[in-house]
């Protein structure tokens, strides 16, 4: 256990406390007790920044499942540190903000903080794990906590819809990614990212290289809301705004970007990786920015803007991966700039987008709406909020002197340099890159302006609001204020970032193109002279400004384009289709008749065991072993058992039937006694007793046993199955005792139960000690079964509507059973 391990575990452990804090200390907002967690974690992470500055990494390993090469290895290099700082830093601000956003009186804030802490721990786990399987576990945990947070107001239908959508899409990607990880393991023989990078030639020459890449990228693209999987992010905006600011703009959606950057040393340098990432990234960039312009909900604008910006970062990472192709040379240095821009913009995006989300939350909180058609002229009422929004938006639009300007310039530089590339058939297509980037930037400019000016300037429309807006409380303004001051600080002094965070992150992404002992030198400056990039920016401002002013003239054109909802319709249609299909399939065999289920079970048993007996030649063993002689007692017992069993078939009365079946069981008890197995005999006897009394207890509820009107065909089926089961069991028993290929494990237990287990009763020592794990899981299964029975019986009547037998909602087997019984 190292400090970093503890840092990952602490948020999870702290969740245990949260409900109690909420329950017993109601005067104070629970958020105040949660706040110390991200704050202290932030300082823990900061304390490591100095250690990794030169491109070194910290690694602590904790064996977890060594036999399967799964270790809880914490690996912190520049890239991990950068993300860990974002997670804890933004996390602290978001918790602070949420204290004022969520009322302690009306909201279930304990749930909120439990999920939020769970997310924080999981996200730290994602970025700090070196082991792919551990990373995957934390990855899915972030999806789950995101699901829970989107559905925080679960009584709203849209929240549930959004939560389900995000869950289905990100989990789909997650499973694909898991498959990709397993393939990586098959190729390299290890789950450790470090070791895979060390064995790179095994992976890159393998036939499965491309499928693996696609599977892993599916995971990254779904998580980072890349086209066409972006559709979940706008619906995720149903979450409380602090969550949108935290998960759905600053951290979780960047997990995909983290993964792509983290795996760039493995896949980077290949043409497919380059094209997939930069291509999808660019499509997402332009699609997101164009879609954002037509939104009328503040959070929807930000959602599409986030999609677009994620696409921007993604495309830059794709371009940056080309540097690996060039290896350690002067040219590679030239192309690493795209990656520098990606890392820099990632930080910038977290700052300004986090601030903007918080602003949107404040507007929503104070006015009661997020619809820009109802908003306007808030600048004089909420001056501080307006200032934050203005700075954030201008940074997002890429204007000086804010950090967004710097990274936007670098983005243009990266795209222009990409156009000069002569590999990956970029010499023909490369020219498109700067063009797309430029068009997307124009739209980015427009929606940034829409966001701030449609809300805060223009005519006041107070009559459309339910409350009179006024400035938010100081505490609520604190977090966005901190973020926008970072926007300005990073804008004016970008090199405080480049030395401490960007350079180490780059050396983590490019381990191969660095000479030993050397490190990246990143210099970010405002003024490069009148370069192409500057001309592009000026063009963006002029064209974007003109289009913004003329917005009303052309916004109607969106109505003519086929709706972007086409993708959503595909999702919705696919979902209902799958649901219908699966319920049809399920209904075809879940008939609610116990007899049918027994047929499945026994039929399966006959087929599988019978096939195995025939196939493996087990039948040859019959008669080989020495069978004990049959004594008189055994013959008598067997005779009685058979008589009772046969008599049960002809019983006309249920009481007699119960007694007959019971006596078969008691005969089995006597067999155990005869074979000197007291434990088994005791158990068998008590089980029989309990089940007979169970029968007696529900005796009255059972329908009268009557001669069933069954066809010969039906009875023949029963006969065949019974004979089949009997034969298979008997043959198995004969084969098993005929063959003794190995020494029985029983000898070990008999010899060691006293010395190792401290008990003389071998059976019991096996149950609780040698195979205690089995017992534990068995009682767990039994416990679940008993809860299932309870739920099926007790909750069943609630599902029937008061009017009659028509079940409300879907018909579950238990209801159909009930109806069957009622009809009897």
């Amino acid at each position, binding site marked *: 256990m190292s400090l970093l391990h503890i840092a990952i575990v602490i948020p999870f452990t702290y969740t245990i406390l949260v409900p109690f804090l909420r329950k017993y200390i109601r005067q104070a907002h629970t958020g105040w007790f949660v706040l110390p967690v991200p704050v202290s974690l932030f300082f823990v992470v900061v304390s490591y920044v100095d250690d990794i500055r030169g491109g070194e990494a910290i690694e602590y390993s904790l064996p977890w499942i060594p036999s399967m090469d799964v270790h809880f290895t914490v690996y912190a290099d520049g890239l991990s540190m950068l993300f860990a700082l974002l997670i804890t830093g933004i996390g602290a601000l978001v918790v602070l903000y949420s204290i004022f956003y969520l009322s302690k009186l009306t909201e279930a804030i304990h749930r909120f903080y439990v999920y939020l802490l769970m997310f924080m721990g999981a996200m730290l786990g994602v970025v700090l794990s070196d082991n792919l399987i551990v990373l995957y576990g934390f990855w899915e945990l972030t999806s789950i906590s995101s699901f829970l947070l989107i559905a925080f107001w679960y009584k709203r239908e849209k929240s549930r819809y959004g939560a389900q959508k995000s869950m289905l899409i990100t989990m789909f990607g997650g499973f694909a990614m898991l498959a990709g990880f397993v393939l990586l393991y098959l190729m390299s023989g290890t789950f450790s990212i470090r070791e895979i990078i060390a064995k790179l030639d095994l992976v890159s020459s393998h036939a499965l290289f491309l499928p693996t890449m696609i599977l892993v990228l599916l995971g990254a693209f779904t998580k980072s809301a890349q086209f066409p999987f972006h559709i979940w992010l706008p619906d995720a905006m149903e979450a409380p705004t602090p969550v949108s600011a935290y998960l759905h703009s600053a951290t979780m959606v960047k997990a995909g970007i983290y993964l792509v950057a983290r795996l760039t040393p493995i896949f980077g340098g290949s043409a497919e990786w380059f094209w997939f990432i930069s291509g999808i990234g660019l499509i997402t960039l332009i699609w997101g920015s164009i879609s954002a312009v037509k939104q009328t909900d503040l959070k929807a604008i930000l959602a599409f803007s986030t999609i677009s910006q994620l696409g921007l970062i993604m495309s830059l990472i794709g371009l940056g991966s080309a540097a690996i192709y060039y290896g350690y040379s002067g040219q590679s240095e030239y192309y690493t700039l795209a990656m520098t821009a990606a890392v820099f913009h990632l930080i910038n995006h977290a700052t300004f987008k986090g601030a903007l989300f918080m602003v949107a939350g404040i507007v929503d909180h104070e006015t009661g709406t997020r619809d820009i058609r109802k908003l306007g002229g808030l600048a004089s009422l909420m001056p501080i909020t307006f200032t934050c929004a203005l700075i954030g938006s201008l940074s997002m639009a890429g204007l000086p002197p804010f950090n967004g300007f710097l990274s936007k310039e670098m983005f243009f530089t990266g795209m222009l340099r990409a156009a000069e590339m002569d590999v990956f058939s970029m010499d023909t297509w490369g020219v498109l890159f700067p063009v797309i980037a430029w068009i997307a930037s124009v739209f980015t400019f427009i929606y940034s302006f829409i966001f701030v000016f449609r809300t805060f300037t223009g005519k006041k429309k107070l009559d459309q609001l339910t409350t009179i807006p006024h400035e938010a409380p100081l505490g609520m303004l604190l977090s966005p204020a901190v973020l926008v001051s970072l926007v300005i600080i990073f804008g004016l002094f970008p090199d405080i970032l480049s030395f401490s965070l960007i350079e180490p992150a780059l050396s983590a992404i490019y381990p191969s193109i660095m000479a030993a002992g050397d490190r990246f030198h990143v210099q970010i400056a405002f003024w490069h002279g009148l370069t192409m990039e500057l001309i592009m920016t000026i063009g963006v401002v002029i064209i974007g400004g003109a289009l913004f002013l003329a917005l009303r003239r052309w916004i109607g054109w969106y109505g003519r384009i086929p709706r972007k909802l086409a993708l959503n319709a595909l999702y919705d249609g696919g979902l209902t289709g799958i649901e219908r299909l699966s319920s049809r399939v399920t209904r075809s065999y879940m008939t609610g008749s116990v007899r049918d289920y027994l047929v499945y079970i026994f039929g399966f048993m006959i087929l599988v065991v019978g096939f195995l007996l025939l196939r493996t030649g087990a039948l040859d063993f019959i008669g080989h072993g020495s069978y004990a002689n049959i004594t008189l007692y055994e013959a008598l017992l067997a005779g009685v058992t058979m008589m009772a069993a046969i008599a049960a078939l002809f019983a006309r009365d249920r009481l007699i039937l119960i007694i007959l079946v019971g006596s078969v069981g008691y005969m089995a008890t006597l067999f155990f006694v005869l074979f000197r197995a007291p434990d088994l005999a005791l158990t068998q006897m008590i089980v029989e007793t309990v089940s007979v009394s169970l029968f007696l207890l529900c005796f009255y509820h059972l329908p009268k046993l009557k001669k069933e009107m069954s066809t010969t065909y039906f009875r023949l089926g029963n006969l065949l199955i019974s004979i089949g089961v009997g034969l298979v069991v008997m043959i198995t028993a004969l084969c098993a005792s005929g063959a003794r290929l190995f020494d029985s494990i029983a000898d070990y237990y008999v010899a060691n139960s006293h010395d190792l287990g*401290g008990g003389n009763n071998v059976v*019991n020592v096996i*149950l*609780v000690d040698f195979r*205690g794990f089995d017992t534990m899981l068995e*009682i767990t299964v039994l416990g679940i079964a008993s809860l299932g029975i309870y739920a099926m019986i007790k909750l069943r009547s609630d599902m029937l509507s008061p009017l009659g037998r028509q079940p409300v909602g879907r018909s579950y087997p238990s209801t159909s059973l009930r109806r069957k019984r009622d009809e009897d």
Partner: protein
Amino acid sequence: MKINDVIFQTAAKFVTFIIFTFSFFIFMAGHNAPGGGFIGGLMGAGALVLVTLAFGMKLVRAVLPVNYRILTAVGLMIATLTGIGSFVFDVPFLSHTFGYYDLPILGETELATATIFDLGVYLTVIGITMSIILTIGEDE
């Protein structure tokens, strides 16, 4: 079924306690003689079923207001915590140990961690059996 209740009820009053004591005995004896948590638990449940048959569910519910689902959970919790307890001593999950101690009255006695685990099994089995039987039995 209200015919011979008097004899049945009178007998049940005594027999239940005998069965219950025996079930506890069998649970404790389990480590060295036939028995153990599973059998003991089933037997205990059998005793409870006997009273239930004799006096009806309403009365038993009133006299013994035990929520058997919670009993199941408690049992499972004990069993799981025994397993987790191994971590404190830096050994794999669910490792057991035992020792011989000189206790007052009892003399030299073997104490085994397996017994704690078995207690979990015992409670779980009673909980499961009773909750299944009562749920089915109470169903209208």
